[in-house]
């Protein structure tokens, strides 16, 4: 196991140190005193485990394909930006644009996530990104989403109704699953609510199990809930935006 003190290290130096540790064969790396350094885990392909104490900077896990990153506290904006594989677990809250253009792997957040969670997230062949948020997200969850699944558990809710504006605005692929009910005025114009099928549940339950294990949450309790499934109403929501029916 390798321990790195991030202290006031510039992000480039810190990321070089982490890469050096990975290249020298360490499989468990702990980074202490992190204070806002950007791009931690950037592009790392090996299945290493990275523990982060402190607050990692923006674009945590950007482009990565393999590592498991554990943040023992809050994290900032752009977590998992364009990441291909691996796992990021955040024990606190996350910032805006989490899972931005993510194309594979899992992001598990115990607390809340910010605006535009999973914006432009997409799946391709075997790559299927999964994001689970224990609390709430900001507005525009799943904006322009093209694939994968975003699950919002809203575990501290007392109403059983998930309130959030513009859910799935511009979404054209993948699905959003919300624990509890969602009123239609919470939805973006381009999505609709459907019932959760047994197949959907099969597809997500392993992820939920892993999420609950990682974050000490009662899986059985979570599975007792009713879920709402949100999917795009059409695969091309903006086909008439500029040409207004001209070609149709």
């Amino acid at each position, binding site marked *: 196991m390798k321990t790195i003190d991030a202290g006031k290290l510039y992000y480039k130096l810190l990321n070089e140190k982490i890469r050096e540790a990975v290249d020298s064969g360490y499989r468990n790396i702990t980074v202490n005193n992190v204070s*806002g350094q*950007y791009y931690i885990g950037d592009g790392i392909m090996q299945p290493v485990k990275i523990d982060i104490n402190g*607050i990692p900077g923006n674009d945590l896990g950007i482009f990565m394909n393999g590592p498991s990153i554990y943040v023992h506290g*809050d994290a*900032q*904006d752009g977590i998992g930006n364009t990441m291909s594989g691996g796992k990021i677990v955040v024990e606190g809250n996350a*910032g805006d644009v989490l899972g931005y253009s993510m194309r594979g792997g899992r992001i598990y957040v115990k607390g809340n996530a910010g605006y535009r969670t999973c914006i432009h997230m997409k799946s391709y062949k075997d790559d299927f990104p999964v994001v689970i948020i224990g609390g709430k997200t900001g*507005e525009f969850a799943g904006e322009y989403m093209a694939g994968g699944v975003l699950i919002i558990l809203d575990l501290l809710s007392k109403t059983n109704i998930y309130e959030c504006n513009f859910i799935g605005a511009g979404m054209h692929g993948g699905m959003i699953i919300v624990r509890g009910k969602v009123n239609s005025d919470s939805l973006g114009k381009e999505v609709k609510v459907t019932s959760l099928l047994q197949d959907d549940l099969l597809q997500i339950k392993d992820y939920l199990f892993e999420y609950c294990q990682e974050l000490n949450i009662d899986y059985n309790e979570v599975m007792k809930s009713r879920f709402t499934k949100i999917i795009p109403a059409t695969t091309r929501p903006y086909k008439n935006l500029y040409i207004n029916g001209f070609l149709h």
Partner: protein
Amino acid sequence: MFINVDQNLPRDISGCGISGFINTNGRRSSGRVCVDSICMMRDRGNGLGAGFAVYGAYPEFKDYYAIHIIYQDVKAKEETEEYLSTKLSIVQRAGIPTKKTKAIPARPLFFVYFGKPRAQSDVAEIDEFREDQEDEFIVRLVMKINKNIDGAYVISSGKNLAVFKGIGFPEDIAEMFMIDEYKGYCWIAHNRYPTNTPGWWGGAHPFSVLDWSVVHNGEISSYGINKRYLEMFKYNLNLKTDTEVIAYLLDLLVRKHGLPLKDTALAFAPPFWSQIEKMSEERKKKIERIRRVYGSAMLNGPFAILVGFKGGLMGLNDRIKLRPLVVGQKGDTTYMASEESAITGVAGNLDKIWSPNAGEPVIAKLKPAVAARLFGKSNKTVRV
């Protein structure tokens, strides 16, 4: 040198960084905290602008307007001082102390004048203006200097408020102005990454007039509309940067029109009509009114701003939150910044930390007794 800064520095694509805090008991702290905080977000800027505003900077002159001016050359200084001598009774003037800084090879001249409006030749000689007349007088003075005198720009004109800004990274500007040596109960700071206006000395943030100061991350796409609107009320926009409109809009809406700060935030970042539809009748009516009357004061485009005002600090996002803003609370101090790490990095563990919602102003005010001590009982702070 003034305008023609080398714009071709190597750049990493980024956004601006903002940071600020206020101690609601009026306890003053050194600039070090603010410098450390903004420097933790160094990569949000590219060396083309940084600055600081500090409230409580000049306690010994707290009843006088502190006019900070940058001059391109001695000629601009002479011309401005001649003009000032006819308009202000100046009790103290000085060059703003600076230190030679390697990273900043060329810079303008910096001066500060402490004074009060002087009775004019065309008005009967009176000892004192009413406060609101004084403020109006100072705003016009600032506009006239910025517009009419070549190479002279007023950087700040509030009471007990100092703004220091220029071309450089925040640590360079802090070193040059020796920010560590100032003390204040409220600080705001900026690290600039200019996008569509030039990086120049007057275009660095904060933008300030009277007791308003603004730092901004984002861009104001409605600049043209806001500018034309402000021009109808005799504000001149000469600083070549979109953020300038925010400072003047605050002055117009709050000081002149008497709008509370929260309603001004509603004018800046109003909810969508579709959201207004869902509100209670009373709320609906109010917001509809604000949208109708102040449509031209709406700020379109992405922004996160910090606003220093007489007696407090406000943070505000655009209505769909296209720029980051985090707020932290520790004891009697409220922190606001673009990134959480820039708060925890200087404040350690906080009592509370959160991201405000889109268009939802976060306002921290000095306690009333503290405000009364600082401004006097009759001297009103901003209505929130």
